[in-house]
């Protein structure tokens, strides 16, 4: 069979390299250069899928990205299988396996096809309307609908392929490698512009590449021969990069474009491994030239969807480019001249052309005359009213049109055929132009939307700009490209062009039938199965906006985004509603132009590159000592260090006890650190913190609370005065970047008069915190020259010191309530200092502890963690930290907000302590707090923000925010949980060592 359908005289397909592939499990053969679609057609396989709603048999209809029917599942590996790919775009490779979608159990026998017989009761929005009631029955309906519908299967395992992204900056980007794109790219590159030409097919040349016809000649050569020479001349251009197999997906403002390059999809299975499958190019072009061509339109008539009905220009490409006959007895049906090109190509290749059915009155253009000369029969002023054949077309019914074209007259002629080519004219591919924000205008003479105005530096040329005839394409492209690039390329001056000119134009959106509309099935959107009837129904039901009609009927909403159907839908709406198409406008064209794989979208941002991991200089030690890690922002922080089989609770209990009984050691390197210098440094701190800073002595540290302008707590930390005009500020780990950015904002915009410089030094220092009653002994061993006596080195002060000649800063500050020292040393020595402290602490049983123990220890002392006990709605007063608000300062960030009517409300949520009646019961963080469970609706008074079992107090403790909490001290509350209500009492926030004795223990 395949031999009979393949012509041997073909220069594009290498007929010496046979390739085997599988379709629906059946082993078939094709050639290198075939697409899956051309190989299937060569094997006489037209039926490749079932339609979405009625499960009607559907065949290959096009040869490109607009294909609505031939969407297939590629591969059956659970990690690599890909649904919804277009057979017309898949390049054939050895080992390709593809299968039909949307049919069960098989494409030839599909149970869902019963829907076709029920189609009179399956109108537009049938599902919406029918299954709305009763509401909770949707679950039942959905099961059956999902099973019979669906578009392919998702892979069930992670994608094993590699994808990546790449940025590209160029002077000129040319989209589309057809004749006009090639000329434009050559013009740009020859004029020293850095130029990129992208083409979604594997070869340049577009449709001119195989246009070998007497009616289209340039300088006495066939147009394809002339173009081949042009393509060859591109290789000598240094400024030109050509990317084939690259599909432009999105065109955003500022000439920012995304293009997907297929790198391995065309390779044989065994050659794909280890290579990048697809690359997403992020392109920034100074100028963009769109040369994306045009798509042929179908014609809308009864049963226009049968397998074997193919766009006329696609039949031409299959015969001229792939050397494949779509049938042995082909009929053509058209409203314009281009079907005659197909007829001539077929006839020259020895295919029997039954006739051309043309809705126009007889016309005498060059190409029509040539067809007549070849003896091709033409039915002028006629239409096809029906087609027959279930799984493949076998005949068409032709009738004469009335003079006004609204009805049919005379007798039906039945014509046997095995393929019908249809041509409804051409639609410029303006998708990218409109994606970029360009506005379209309507051209009445041939019913097309063409580019009008754009704010971007871009140009549309060739048939995407509405130039369809060879001489117009060349002349207009050359002129506008020269003008757009401000160059004068005279390569294309004085070309002698022969081009057939279309004389007679006629368009009927919905062709008349011998049957009433209700008895016909004129399909508009082939993939979503919507017909002209559905559109009319929507209009009858009152939908007016094109966007609403689209959604109601789902026309244009399938994976092909209505590339073939949208214009007809618009035309029928305009006609029915009696408005002009230009006034109706179009639906919105959204990216991507063709579907992108998720892999291409995420690129390498998967697995270990999914998110950034920051490590402290001591990270390696934590790993070696089996720490469990916690994510804090992007940091990996040691969470706890389980010993043996300890779980988290056991480890934290042990670590907490050790820190209070002897000594613990914590890696605090992640805290944000900002070096502050300048003569106004003190004034600056006065303005950004709630407390006063001017009087802080050099060498002293102070805790500060930073608010937002709305009075809510933003960040906190200890700041140390290193010199007269020199401070170092610490911030929370997660807040570091935001705090620096906020401080810079105030310095640059509100207070530019202040002489203050901020420099982040977070990564310059490693911070080793030694904490517990024995901490002094360890620090004195590590830094023997440092006088640690309480009167020389007081709490909240700092000393410069040397460890083995390396400079470090030692701060005596505490986040746990224990005597603690923080040693800050430049990061490269951090691990070494840590190890030294650890070694020195061995005799005291020094215990490394992580963030969880740190949180527990500070909760015992009632110290807050911003972001855990606060959530952007807590003022310092709400936190019962009134003591930190300076009464003397005239202003600081957020001060005025502290006495707004809302912030002075007494019944705001306030921070309190909670003790459970059962000391063993540990509350869940986030649990709600209520006073009266019986009063409905139950009033939520607040929630638990921090909760731990304290090994040092031997009871459960918690912090919470509670409405009016300050006044509720001693009151009993309930924490309702799923199975029980927990009794709690509101307490003070400090659970341990209220007198701060331990700081000087």
């Amino acid at each position, binding site marked *: 069979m395949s031999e009979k359908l393949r012509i041997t005289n073909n220069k594009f397909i290498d007929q010496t390299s046979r390739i085997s592939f599988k379709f629906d499990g059946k082993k078939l053969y094709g050639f290198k250069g075939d697409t899956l679609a051309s190989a299937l057609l060569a094997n006489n396989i037209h039926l490749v899928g079932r339609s979405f709603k009625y499960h009607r048999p559907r065949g290959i209809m096009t040869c490109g990205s607009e294909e609505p029917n031939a969407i297939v599942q590629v591969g059956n590996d659970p990690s690599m299988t890909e649904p919804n790919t277009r057979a017309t775009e898949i390049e054939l490779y050895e080992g390709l396996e593809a299968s039909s979608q949307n049919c069960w159990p098989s494409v030839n026998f599909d149970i869902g096809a019963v829907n076709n017989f029920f189609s009179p009761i399956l109108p537009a929005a049938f599902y919406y309307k029918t299954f709305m009631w009763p509401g909770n029955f949707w679950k039942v309906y959905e099961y059956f609908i999902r099973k019979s519908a669906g578009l392919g299967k998702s892979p069930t395992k992670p994608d094993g392929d590699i994808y990546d*992204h790449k940025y*590209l900056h160029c002077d000129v980007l040319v989209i589309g490698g057809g004749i006009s794109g090639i000329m434009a790219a050559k013009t740009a590159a020859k004029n020293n512009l850095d130029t990129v030409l992208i083409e979604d097919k594997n070869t340049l040349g577009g449709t001119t590449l195989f246009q070998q016809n007497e009616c289209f000649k340039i300088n006495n050569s066939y147009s394809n021969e002339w173009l081949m020479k042009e393509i060859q001349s591109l290789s000598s251009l240094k400024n030109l990069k050509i990317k084939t197999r690259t599909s432009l997906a999105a065109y955003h403002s500022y000439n920012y474009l995304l293009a997907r390059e297929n790198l391995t999809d065309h390779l044989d299975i065994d050659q794909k491994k280890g290579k990048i499958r697809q690359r997403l190019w992020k392109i920034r072009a100074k100028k963009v030239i769109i040369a994306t061509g045009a798509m042929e339109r179908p014609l809308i008539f009864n049963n226009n969807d049968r397998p074997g009905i193919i766009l006329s220009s696609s039949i031409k490409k299959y015969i001229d480019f792939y050397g494949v006959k779509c049938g042995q007895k082909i009929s053509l049906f058209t409203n314009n001249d281009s079907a005659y090109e197909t007829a001539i190509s077929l006839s020259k290749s020895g295919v029997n052309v039954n006739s051309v059915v043309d809705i126009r009155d007889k016309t005498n253009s060059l190409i029509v005359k040539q067809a007549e000369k070849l003896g091709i029969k033409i039915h002028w002023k006629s239409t096809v009213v029906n087609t027959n054949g279930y799984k493949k077309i076998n005949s068409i019914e032709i009738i004469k049109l009335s003079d006004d074209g609204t009805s049919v007259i005379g007798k039906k002629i039945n014509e046997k055929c095995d393929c019908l080519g249809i041509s409804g004219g051409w639609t410029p591919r303006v998708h990218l132009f409109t994606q970029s924000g360009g506005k379209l205008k309507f051209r009445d003479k041939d019913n097309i939307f063409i580019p009008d105005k754009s704010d971007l530096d871009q140009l549309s040329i060739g048939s995407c700009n509405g130039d369809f005839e060879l001489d117009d394409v060349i002349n207009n492209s050359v002129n506008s490209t020269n003008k757009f690039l401000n160059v004068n390329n005279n390569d294309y001056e004085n070309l002698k062009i022969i081009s057939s000119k279309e004389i007679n134009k006629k368009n009927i959106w919905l062709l008349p039938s011998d049957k009433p509309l209700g008895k016909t099935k004129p399909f508009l959107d082939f993939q979503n199965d919507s017909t002209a009837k559905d559109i009319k129904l929507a209009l009858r039901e009152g939908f007016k906006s094109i966007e609403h009609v689209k959604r109601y009927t789902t026309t244009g909403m399938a994976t092909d985004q209505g590339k073939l159907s949208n214009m007809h839908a618009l035309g029928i709406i305009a006609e029915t509603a009696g408005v002009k198409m230009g006034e109706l406008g179009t639906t919105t064209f959204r990216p991507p132009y063709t579907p992108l794989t998720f892999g291409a979208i995420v690129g390498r941002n998967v697995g*270990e590159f999914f998110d950034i991991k920051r490590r402290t200089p001591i990270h390696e030690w934590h790993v070696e000592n089996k720490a469990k890690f916690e994510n804090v922002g992007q940091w990996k922080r040691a969470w706890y260090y389980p010993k043996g089989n300890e779980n988290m609770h056991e480890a934290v209990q042990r670590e907490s006890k050790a820190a209070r009984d002897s000594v613990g050691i914590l890696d605090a390197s992640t805290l944000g650190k900002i070096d502050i210098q300048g003569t106004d440094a003190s004034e600056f701190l006065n303005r950004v913190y709630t407390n006063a800073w001017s009087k802080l002595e050099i060498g002293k540290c102070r805790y500060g609370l930073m608010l937002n302008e709305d009075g809510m707590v933003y960040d906190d930390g200890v700041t140390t005065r290193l010199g007269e005009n020199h401070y170092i500020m610490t911030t929370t780990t997660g807040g570091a970047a935001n705090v620096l950015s906020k401080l810079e904002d105030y310095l640059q915009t509100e207070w530019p008069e202040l002489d203050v410089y901020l420099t982040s030094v*977070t990564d310059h220092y490693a911070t080793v915190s030694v904490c517990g009653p024995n901490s002094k002994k360890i620090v004195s061993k590590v830094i023997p020259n440092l006088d640690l006596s309480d009167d020389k080195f007081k709490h909240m002060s700092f000393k410069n010191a040397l460890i083995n*000649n390396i*400079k470090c800063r030692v701060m005596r500050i505490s986040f746990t309530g224990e005597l603690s020292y923080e040693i800050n040393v430049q990061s*490269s020595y951090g691990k070494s200092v840590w190890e030294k402290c650890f070694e020195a602490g061995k005799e005291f049983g020094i215990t490394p502890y992580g963030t969880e123990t740190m949180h527990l220890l500070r909760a015992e002392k009632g110290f807050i963690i911003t972001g855990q006990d606060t959530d952007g709605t807590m003022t310092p007063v709400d936190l019962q930290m009134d003591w930190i608000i300076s009464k003397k300062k005239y202003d600081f960030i957020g001060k005025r907000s502290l006495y707004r009517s809302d912030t002075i409300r007494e019944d705001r949520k306030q921070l309190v302590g909670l003790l459970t009646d059962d000391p063993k019961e540990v509350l869940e963080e986030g649990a709600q707090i209520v006073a009266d469970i019986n009063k409905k609706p139950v009033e939520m008074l607040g929630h638990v923000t921090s909760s731990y079992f304290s090994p040092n107090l031997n009871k459960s403790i918690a912090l919470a925010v509670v409405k009016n909490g300050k006044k509720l001290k001693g009151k009993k509350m309930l924490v309702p949980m799923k199975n029980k209500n927990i009794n709690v009492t509101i307490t003070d926030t400090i659970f341990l060592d209220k007198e701060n004795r331990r700081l000087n223990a």
Partner: protein
Amino acid sequence: MLNYNLPINVTKDYSEINFSTVDPVLKINLRGKNREFITKIGKILSIIPPTDPNISSGNENLNILWLSPDEWLLYSNDKIDPVNLHAYLNNDVLEEKLYNEISLAKLGSITNVSDHWVMINLKGKNIFELLTAGCPFNFNKFKNTKGAVTQTLLNHIDVIIHNKDINDLNIFVRRSFSEHLFLWMNDTAARI
């Protein structure tokens, strides 16, 4: 004695791409707003900090990179002899001199950031192939401009890039991000 630990300390070779870390080098952040500051720096270092954006100045020992209208990064060219390392880092005469004559003289601020940044050197014909895989910056002009400087994002991480010579550049990345960035660089370079 304390041990000196670098987060990355390897040399890697790929197709026309070579990575190496050159550490320790001295890195100091310079900030100041007025002419006096510029003049003073010029006097101390014999290099005038550039006031034009996206460039650097320097001599065979030191480089000053423009970071913003009032901020520069000073770094030394050469690796310091490990034997003298401790002495170098502690009694760093240069840093002290700058601090005394700029910070204490109220002309601006001097901050040691030697360990804040990790410097990775990239050499080879394909280094821009690597950078364009994760960086939105337009390198077309930059790559032919000796001494050009940019601050941008590489694989979502802040970096400073100094174009030392044709196909020879230094990337500065914050220390805590350096291992992650280096992992990404190796992953990408292996496929170029």
